[in-house]
């Protein structure tokens, strides 16, 4: 059993900021950086600043002080989850740092929802961020090198998202969650993250449906995180060939952010891609009542990839009910 039902956990609000590429993309964002530095000296500082901007905004919107928050859970893509840890040194909030790459948002919600369901904690915040150039630097080539990329590669989204979770009823209920398993289907290609993560997404979706005895059509929408175009096609094919499940009501967050002519290849990736699409598009549309959010993360390390190991992946799912 890898699933859990929550009694009363709600997402009350969110705050987000994005980078210049996302602003120029398909969705409308109010708050965006004009360049990758945002008046800071380094890209790393710019990512930390994005996190503090969204956290400040969330606290300000609800007239809260940092002391009012019982726990904050979050992570990012940098080594030692630097952006999150360094941002929170200026706040006085109990912090749990997590890492599951691009699945970090869902993992944060699962951890926070469990703590809130105990009723000992009243208010929790989940936070995550990614920055295209800090992750290029960390996982790939120097920023100015502009290494050529194949069509199957994804583009790390720049942005930060914070969300407030409490026991107070709101329109968005966190109904249940499924904790993912680490899945490795033998892919070594670091450009093909969609292929790495698709089996993990399939595993978590199947586990979720089995644990809670639900059919795939129970959900109005299955929103996967950052599989991109290649990964989405693989997931659809995989579920059909392996389990005879037809994936119909499905959207992938990675494919919702950029336009065709932005040269972002198979789509957006990064831990912020999924919450950006969830909060900015899906929940605003008020079209879907039952949503299964499946955040996928590739757990690769450049060291292990250089040593010719295959790439493991994980996916965590949260089920949201919208009023």
């Amino acid at each position, binding site marked *: 059993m890898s699933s859990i039902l929550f009694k009363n956990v709600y997402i009350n609000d969110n705050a987000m900021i994005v980078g210049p590429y996302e602003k120029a993309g398909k969705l409308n964002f109010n708050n965006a950086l004009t360049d990758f530095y945002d008046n800071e000296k380094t890209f790393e500082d710019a990512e930390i600043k994005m996190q503090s901007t969204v956290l400040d905004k969330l606290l300000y919107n609800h007239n809260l002080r940092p002391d009012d928050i019982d726990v904050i859970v979050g992570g990012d893509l940098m080594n030692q989850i630097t952006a999150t840890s360094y941002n929170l040194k200026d706040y006085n909030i109990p912090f749990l740092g997590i890492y599951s790459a691009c699945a970090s948002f869902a993992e944060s919600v699962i951890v926070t929802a469990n703590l809130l369901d105990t009723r000992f904690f009243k208010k929790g915040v989940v936070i995550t961020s990614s920055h295209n150039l800090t992750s290029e630097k960390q996982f790939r*080539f120097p920023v100015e090198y502009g290494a050529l990329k194949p069509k199957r590669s994804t583009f790390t989204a720049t942005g930060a998202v914070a969300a407030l979770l409490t026991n107070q009823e709101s329109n968005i209920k966190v109904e249940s969650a499924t904790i993912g398993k680490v899945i490795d289907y*033998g892919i070594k290609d670091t450009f093909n993250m969609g292929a790495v993560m698709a089996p993990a997404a399939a595993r978590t979706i199947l586990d979720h449906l089995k644990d809670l005895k639900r059919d795939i059509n129970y959900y109005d929408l299955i929103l996967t995180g950052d599989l991109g175009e290649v990964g989405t096609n693989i997931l659809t094919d995989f579920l059909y060939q392996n389990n005879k499940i037809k994936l119909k009501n499905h959207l992938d967050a990675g494919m919702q952010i950029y336009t065709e002519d932005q040269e972002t290849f198979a789509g957006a990736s990064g831990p912020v891609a999924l919450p950006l699409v969830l909060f900015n598009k899906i929940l605003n549309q008020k079209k879907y009542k039952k949503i299964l959010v499946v955040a996928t993360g590739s757990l690769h390390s450049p060291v292990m990839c250089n040593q010719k190991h295959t790439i493991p992946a994980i996916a965590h799912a949260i089920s949201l009910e919208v009023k």
Partner: protein
Amino acid sequence: MNKKQYEKIVKKHTPKEDRFINALSAFIFGGLLGVLAEAITKLLRVIFNLTVLDATVWMMIVFIFTACLLTALGVFDKLTTFFKAAIIIPITGFAHSVTSAALDYKQDGLIQGVGSNCFKMAGSVILYGVISAFILVIIGVIINV
């Protein structure tokens, strides 16, 4: 589903790269770069009355300087998306890899940052360049004996 079957699915959905067009563009633009280099060398010989060897060295310096400058101005990475291998494989690409790595680590200090990281990508070129030169010289000597 086993890994073999999965590999088939992955292969089916992974887009193919336009290898032929990429190779053709590298051939044409790389060739044009060669023509430009030849023109610069000729020009240097005529204007400054240099020997072929000296003029070639100065031509390379011009290329290296231009590549570094364009990298620092943030233009070179945009050019690579269009010209691809044509400007990455010649000495311009080598200069670019050193400058871009140095820029990345500028804020990490002169020793731990720029010093230890600027040959991050160019290091392999230097190492295997020296080794292959060494081997080729030995072969050359043997043949000439």
